[in-house]
């Protein structure tokens, strides 16, 4: 095409700007949608990663002491380290650890850790401090700027020295967003931040923390291997930012590719269709050009240039608008979320260009075929080929009341069998695809619904120590022989001798016969008010079961869960009570059937934990809100005597029995059995046992040395009753001296105490009835996952009322022991120690589980998670919606587009009939009605799009017929 012709050609295009604009808009829309899909795909990933960076910092590994290791410093993977200095652990006013250190942070460190101020500013002088919210809360401050903050620490972070306690007072100048309880390794970095000069004034030595980030040039995405490689070269432990780098962002690549291909096919088809339609309209022009002497080559070139002009201009504009729109939207999101993630990658641009190129090639192929078809020169006078005569033979008779029907039937038939059949087959195909997609989505949703009630995560507040399960047992024979083998562990002895273990009932009877021998004091025993019994413990340890570590008396810290509740993807958090520390017995109990031999430490030389057993508690009880829904679910597992009221009042429970270590069910526990829930075993005042004993709670343990916490001490501290505690200790000490000797020798023993020790160790606190005993199978585990996330060998489900009664009874016992009423502050109080979290669908792409797990780890909460399973189902739902939903949408759009095009063609072909009907006096609504019957009949082949088809075609018919 020469210059002059080009000029004329473009002027011609400009002259037809309205027509050209129409094609351009359609082309632009197609290109817009393709670009949108690509941008969504990329930025959804970037968003998730950016959120993780924001929350957990962008560092890759952390070194928590010394100078930077050469291996790390010189690593090809890592940037130069950034530093912070720590000067010791912070303690609160009661000298409890506040989790975190005091120290300074360099600006580079803060940037890499993404630590930002929520309010105020960084410290500027030696008297100022900035802390994160969690640290302030743990120290008991509300975060008001200007507040005086007392930081307690030990000299050189070493509390074992004499007079090591130190404190410093600062003014709060800034508050950071939380990180000390969010980061898994948050306790290693300063959460009380002061200036470096202020740090030097502390009576403590500096220890450095170094953060290393990954070099931008690192293309290897196997971060774990990089970390292992780095760690392999260092003897000390370095911490890896697993929260960020082990996190797999949601983004179904296959589905994204599928969507991209689908949208591209539709887009390219639509682009090509637009251009072809446009070129059809231009046929007359090109024929005329040919008539006045233009060669085929010139015409071809003109068509190509016109196509390319439209496709490139509109395609680029469409993509540009999409990018601009996405940028604007992401700007808002970035501002709202406080992160930066938007990216337009080279891949996106290349794919956009590729789409336009494919459209150009497609339209060019059509172009070529059109030019080939138009062999010979077109003349204005050439007439259309006359249609071959169609012979009609209609059976229906035209009557006054069937004109509309007959008219549509005959007009429709005159369209030809091919078209009528084609439309129906196409609609049927669309129906099939929609049903297929719907079924797939529905199956994914159904699968998800089946596990929807299951909690994503169940967290337990473990007590500060774990207790081995201790149950009373002995035999007549063992007692006799034991006297001669007093140095031998009783259980070991019994097992060596293959002495049968007998039931508790038998034991009591037979033991009574041996009372006299027992009185000799050659062995340990305890005495109830009624009888003397031999104390032989069966001890469950962590080879075949794990020690109990949750009690009703230590509640969960809800403050961190308040933060969890705010996370994107968390739907709800519910609280309940769970315990694994309490011992049970029942009247017909049989230790053999229980599999007690295996629970003994002596029964196995192997120190290895037994897979499938070692992670199981011996006894667990779930105390739940007894609502009707729960009752109805449990009813199926209970006998006929199980009624709502007795369940709600805590009189009846359901017991689940799992296979013992011999893979057998214990059938000694039966429906109707009274289950004796023992008291918590508390240490008597003044007892000389070490606090490290794993069998006791120690009520008056001060908690600083041997044991850091206990529930009573915690309760007292919370209420600032330290003085009261000391007073009790004094009394206990005075009584204990006498008590201890009395108990051991039984000379002059005060009857006040004799029964109490038995009660504490083996006494029944409450004894609800087992309304149902269920042997646990995988199926039952699955059914009850949401109620019982963690099955023990014996698991009870009871109402919360039972737990309340247990606490009351425990208090009564404690009062008996101490001989006076306990102050309210020291009474056992039922506390929620379990939380269950449910996620919603947003959890799939919000890294929710990852973040919640880190929160739990940071707050010393043990948890079990179903999230992986639920996440799989949730992701399946999302993927199904994406894959099949978009396919369905695409098919519906294509269906509607084709039907609309077909309708327009039909109207064009039937113009003469419409005109004739008008001339004969048929109104517009009558004519529309005639055609709408045809529409209805065809739409019925795809009922899903029927309403849309009817509406669209009604609009098209009405508007087009008006124009005729």
């Amino acid at each position, binding site marked *: 095409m020469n210059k002059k012709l080009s000029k004329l050609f473009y002027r011609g295009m400009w002259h037809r700007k309205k027509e050209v604009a129409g094609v351009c808009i359609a082309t632009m829309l197609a290109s817009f949608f393709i670009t949108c899909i690509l941008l969504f795909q990329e930025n959804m990933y970037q968003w998730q990663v950016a959120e993780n960076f924001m929350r957990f910092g962008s560092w890759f590994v952390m070194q928590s002491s010394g100078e930077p290791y050469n291996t790390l410093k010189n690593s090809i993977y890592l940037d130069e380290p950034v530093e912070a200095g720590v000067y010791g652990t912070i303690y609160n006013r009661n000298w409890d650890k506040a989790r975190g250190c005091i120290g300074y942070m360099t600006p580079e460190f803060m940037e890499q850790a993404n630590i930002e101020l929520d309010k105020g500013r960084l410290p500027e002088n030696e008297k100022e401090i900035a802390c994160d919210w969690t640290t302030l809360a743990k120290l008991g401050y509300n975060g008001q700027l200007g507040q005086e903050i007392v930081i307690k620490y030990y000299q050189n972070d070493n509390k074992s020295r004499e007079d090591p306690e130190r404190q410093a007072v600062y003014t709060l100048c800034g508050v950071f967003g939380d990180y000390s309880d969010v980061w898994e390794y948050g306790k290693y970095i300063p959460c009380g931040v002061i200036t470096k000069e202020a740090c030097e004034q502390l009576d403590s030595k500096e220890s450095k923390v170094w953060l290393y980030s990954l070099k931008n040039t690192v293309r290897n995405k196997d971060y774990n291997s990089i970390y292992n490689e780095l760690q392999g070269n260092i003897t000390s432990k370095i911490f890896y930012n697993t929260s960020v780098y082990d996190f797999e962002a949601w983004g179904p690549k296959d589905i994204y590719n599928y969507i991209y291909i689908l949208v591209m096919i539709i887009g390219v088809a639509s682009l090509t269709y637009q251009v072809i339609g446009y070129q059809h309209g231009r046929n007359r022009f090109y024929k005329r050009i040919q008539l006045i002497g233009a060669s085929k080559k010139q015409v071809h070139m003109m068509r190509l240039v016109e196509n390319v002009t439209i496709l490139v201009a509109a395609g680029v504009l469409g993509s540009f608008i999409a990018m601009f729109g996405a940028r604007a939207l992401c700007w808002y999101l970035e501002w709202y979320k406080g992160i930066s993630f938007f990216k337009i990658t080279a891949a996106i641009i290349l794919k956009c260009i590729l789409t336009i190129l494919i459209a150009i090639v497609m339209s060019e192929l059509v172009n070529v075929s059109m030019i080939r078809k138009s062999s010979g020169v077109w003349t204005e006078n050439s007439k259309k080929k006359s249609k071959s005569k169609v012979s009609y033979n209609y059976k229906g008779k035209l009557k006054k009341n069937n004109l509309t029907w007959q008219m549509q039937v005959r007009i429709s038939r005159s369209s030809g069998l091919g078209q009528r059949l084609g439309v129906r087959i196409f609609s049927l195909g669309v129906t099939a695809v929609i049903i297929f997609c719907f079924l797939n989505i529905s199956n994914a949703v159904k699968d998800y619904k089946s596990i929807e009630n299951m909690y994503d995560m169940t967290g337990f507040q473990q007590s500060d120590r774990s207790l081995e399960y201790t149950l009373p047992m002995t035999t007549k024979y063992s007692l006799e022989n034991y006297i001669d083998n007093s140095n031998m562990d009783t259980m070991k002895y019994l097992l060596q001798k293959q002495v049968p273990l007998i039931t508790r009932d038998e034991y009591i009877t037979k033991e009574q016969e041996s009372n006299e021998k027992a009185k000799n004091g050659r062995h340990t025993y305890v005495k109830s008010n009624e009888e003397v019994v031999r104390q032989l413990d069966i001890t469950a340890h962590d080879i075949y079961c794990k020690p109990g570590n949750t009690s009703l008396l230590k509640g969960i810290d809800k403050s961190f869960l308040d933060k969890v509740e705010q996370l994107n993807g968390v739907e709800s958090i519910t609280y309940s009570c769970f315990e694994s520390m309490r011992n049970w017995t029942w009247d017909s109990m049989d230790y053999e059937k229980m599999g007690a031999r295996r629970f003994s430490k002596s029964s196995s030389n192997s120190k290895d934990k037994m897979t499938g057993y070692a992670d199981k508690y011996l006894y667990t009880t779930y105390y739940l809100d007894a609502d009707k829904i729960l009752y109805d679910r449990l009813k199926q597992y209970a006998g006929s005597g199980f009624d709502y009221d007795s369940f709600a009042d805590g009189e009846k429970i359901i017991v689940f029995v799992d296979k013992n270590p011999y893979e057998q069910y214990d059938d000694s526990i039966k429906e109707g059995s009274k289950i004796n829930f023992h008291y918590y075993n508390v240490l008597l005042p003044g007892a000389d046992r070490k606090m490290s004993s794993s069998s006791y709670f120690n009520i008056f343990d001060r908690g600083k040395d041997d044991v850091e916490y206990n529930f009573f001490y915690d309760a007292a501290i919370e209420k600032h009753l330290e003085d009261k505690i000391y007073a009790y200790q004094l009394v206990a000490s005075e009584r204990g001296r006498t008590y201890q000797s009395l108990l051991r020798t039984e000379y002059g023993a005060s009857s006040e105490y004799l029964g109490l020790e038995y009660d504490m160790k083996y006494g029944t606190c409450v004894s609800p009835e087992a309304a149902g005993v269920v042997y646990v199978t995988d199926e039952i585990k699955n059914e009850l996952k949401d109620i019982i996330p963690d099955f023990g060998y014996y698991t009870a489900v009871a109402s919360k009322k039972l737990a309340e009664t247990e606490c009351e009874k425990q208090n009564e016992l404690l009062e008996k022991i101490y001989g006076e009423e306990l102050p309210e502050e020291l009474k056992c109080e039922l506390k929620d120690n379990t939380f269950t979290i449910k996620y919603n669908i947003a959890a799939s792409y919000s890294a929710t589980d990852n973040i919640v797990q880190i929160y739990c780890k940071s707050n010393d909460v043990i948890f079990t998670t179903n999230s992986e399973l639920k996440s799989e189902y949730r992701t399946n739902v999302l993927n199904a919606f994406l894959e099949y939903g978009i396919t369905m949408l695409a098919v519906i759009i294509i269906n509607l587009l084709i039907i609309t095009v077909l309708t327009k063609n039909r109207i064009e072909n039937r113009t003469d009939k419409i005109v*004739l009907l008008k001339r004969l*006096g048929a109104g517009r609504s009558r004519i529309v009605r005639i055609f709408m019957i045809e529409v209805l009949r065809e739409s019925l082949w795809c009922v899903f799009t029927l309403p849309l088809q009817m509406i669209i075609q009604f609009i098209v018919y009405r508007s087009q017929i008006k124009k005729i």
Partner: protein
Amino acid sequence: MENIILNAAGISKTYHAGSVDVEALKKSDVLFKKGEFTAIVGKSGSGKSTLLRIIGTMDRPDEGTVEIEGMNVFEMKDKQLSKFRREKIGFIYQDYSLFPEFTAYENIVVPFALDNKNAPEEEIDGILESLGISHCKGKYPSQMSGGEQQRVAIARAIATHPAVIFADEPTGNLDAESAKIVADMLSMASKKYNQTIIMVTHDMQMADHADRVLTIVDGNVKEGKLY
């Protein structure tokens, strides 16, 4: 004036073709009497078809009014106009305008069905008889000759006894012999059924069959055969 069935007064119509305006009719007045067979002649582009479309209610003038049986047709709403067309107007076109999917008889019956009336079968048979196409009653248009199709169109037009029948070049697609038959039929219908027929033609011989001839010259309607 009592016999006046159609009164078109001050009809003007201008077509816009790009930047050029073409005046098809210039304030034309024309009256048609009941039972009169009028031929409108004129050169190509003189405005005769425009006039027929306007007085036949298929198009609206820029100016002027059209009254048929004393009713101003352009004051009517769409629905009223459709009813008016069904009852008062019949059309005959050069392309016969028959539904190919319907038999000759059914094509004639369509206007009755549109009006939800029973078709007078005997009367239609009579009309078919008088037009000489009884044998075509059950045939589809594709099974008939051009002349026969046009006579079916005439039969359809006169069967409903409209006040006016408009015929636009009814013989344009016919050979001389068939054209003559059609012209005779129109003339016969006018007389036998006392119907007003307004026919546009450029064929002077056809115009000779009419009772009255109007000529359109440059958008003005004039009495008589002027060329």
